[in-house]
């Protein structure tokens, strides 16, 4: 085999394609890069427009030791994990019912779930605040876990519904005839079949909950301060510590990045199947 020279036209196309992709990657990742840079800058060089600075880990040190940021991270973790688990417990049966059973108002109910995601949170926060105040749910884990259902439940139901619709009812009938009752069929056959969807949906739910700010700010408090709210405290009116905030944001983003990398395969498959169709 001789090495044939690549035609110039194709070579140019190859190079320009990669250059363009590189530019896009830079564009997309620039905020992240900017954040990393900020987190490594000392306060004195914060507003320099050049990329030359004296890197320091002081910001991380402050965030991790002096401010109670780790506590806020822990709060966020507890609230988000519990919220996602609660969403799964409620949402999986709901999605199954919306996919399988013919009942009156099925589409209306499905749409109502979806519509929870339409309105901005700030729109409902005042009545919610008053209700929470009356119920004594302000600044409690339960209160935040509950209100986070507004974020995670519709997402989970809508993604999983598509997955359940993809399972042929014949498969469930076959399993029933093979000697299993409804519950056994559900756990042995149906649930394993929607697992990619469940993984993708719960990860997305987790990310949305993790990043939620409005609810945590107004319905949370000293006990249940989440990392998003805690970060904001570094940008007070008198002292503005961009470096601290950047370091905190980086630390806070870490779990999401790790989770997403771990289940990347499921994520792509999960979101490209089922969910995209009506």
């Amino acid at each position, binding site marked *: 085999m001789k090495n044939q020279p690549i035609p110039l036209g194709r070579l140019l196309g190859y190079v320009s394609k990669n250059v363009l992709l590189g530019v896009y990657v830079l564009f997309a990742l620039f905020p992240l890069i900017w954040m990393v840079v900020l987190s490594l800058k000392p306060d004195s060089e914060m507003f320099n427009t050049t990329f030359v600075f004296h890197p320091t880990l002081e910001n991380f040190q402050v965030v991790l030791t002096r401010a109670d940021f780790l506590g806020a991270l822990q709060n966020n973790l507890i609230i988000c994990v519990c919220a996602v688990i609660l969403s799964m417990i409620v949402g999986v049966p709901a999605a199954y019912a919306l996919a399988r059973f013919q009942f009156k108002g099925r589409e209306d109910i499905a749409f109502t779930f979806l519509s929870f995601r339409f309105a901005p949170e700030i729109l409902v926060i005042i009545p919610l605040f008053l209700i929470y105040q009356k119920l004594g749910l302000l600044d409690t884990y339960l209160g935040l876990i509950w209100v986070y259902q507004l974020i995670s439940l519709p997402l989970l139901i809508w993604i999983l519904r598509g997955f359940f619709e993809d399972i*042929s009812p*014949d498969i469930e*009938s*076959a*399993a029933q*005839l*093979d000697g299993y009752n409804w519950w056994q069929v559900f756990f042995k056959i149906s649930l394993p079949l929607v697992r990619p969807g469940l993984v993708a949906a719960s990860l997305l739910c987790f990310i949305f909950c993790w990043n939620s700010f409005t609810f945590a700010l107004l319905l949370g408090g000293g006990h249940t301060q989440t990392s998003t709210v805690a970060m904001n405290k570094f940008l007070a009116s008198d002292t503005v510590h961009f470096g601290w905030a950047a370091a905190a944001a980086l630390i806070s983003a870490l779990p999401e990045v790790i989770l997403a990398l771990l289940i990347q395969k499921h994520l792509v498959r999960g979101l490209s199947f089922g969910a995209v169709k009506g």
Partner: protein
Amino acid sequence: MATIEIEGLTKFYGKRRGVENVSFTVADKEFLAIFGPAGAGKTTTLNLIAGTVTPNRGTVRIAGNSIDGLEPAERNIAMVFESYALYPNHSVYENMAFPLKSPKFRVPDSEVKERVMRVAKMMKIDHLVDRKIQALSNGQRQRTALGRALVRNPQVFLLDEPLSHLDAKLRHSMRAELKEMRSQLGTTTIYVTHDYLEAMSLGDRIVILDDGQIQQIGTPDDIYFRPANTTVAKLFGDPEINLVEATVRKRGDAGLEVQLLGENSPVAVPQSLLGTIANRDKLIVGFRPADVEILDGTPDKKSHPAVVYSFEPLGTKSVVTLEGLKGSRLRALVDGRKHFEADRRAQFRLAPEHLMFFDADTKKFIGRHNSSETEDL
């Protein structure tokens, strides 16, 4: 002993009729075929028996015991679905072992393996048992689905168009295999199909469903030679039966003749039917394409003139569509070695003993030439 008795089974999906008032019985070890066009309610009937669909009315008894309201798992029925309904995330072995590991039909682990392998061998898929379902061809999937039904000993087998997704060649060989298997198994079986050849070759008896209602129940011969009405006659047989309107006239003193296809050559009404036909003046006469004989020679008294409208060679046989004098078209099945040019003149003859007579209004079967009994349904 597992007879199946079905009484007045009715299922409506909203306003749409699934099946209405379906009643039939299946004897122990009988192989019953349910035949009908798409949307006739065949699968609904099976689902009602299997318990995966709940009827509005009606009763199903297996071996004399009512199974209404029982969960599908408690009915001890094995079913092969049209879509095969295999568990996609399991291997062939796991699919076939699934019923044997269920709480209802559990057998010891050692026996599971033995039984699955025995059936796999019988289905000729024993070399595939470790494959995932996605890696199987359609024919192999079909065998796996059949195998999953065969591993346990159900009271009743329900087969829902198991061969319809196979290519023509495989379908023929599987039909032969099924036929052999049914004699080995000796289990009461209901077999749903929309292929009349399958129904005829496999069924001890055939139930004809159309639009959710039973049209006829009978042996393959009954249904082919004495169809209960024109609908059944049209559904059974390919190419489709010829149905022409005919008028009844007196012949001589006591006889009657029917005149079909124009003025020429009336056909005498058989003696056995004189009584039933006497008070009618219109009839529908049916005859199978194979019973139309195209003549080579010159016209005679009993032949009819026509023009060849189209010619479709099918190998051993050819379908010739003839256009009669009144513009009516008839299908004829002729020997594949003969060739007919379109627009050519032709003479054809009908043997009176092959004619079937139907009522012009109700479309019901009245009788045929060489059948002594008259069915008045």
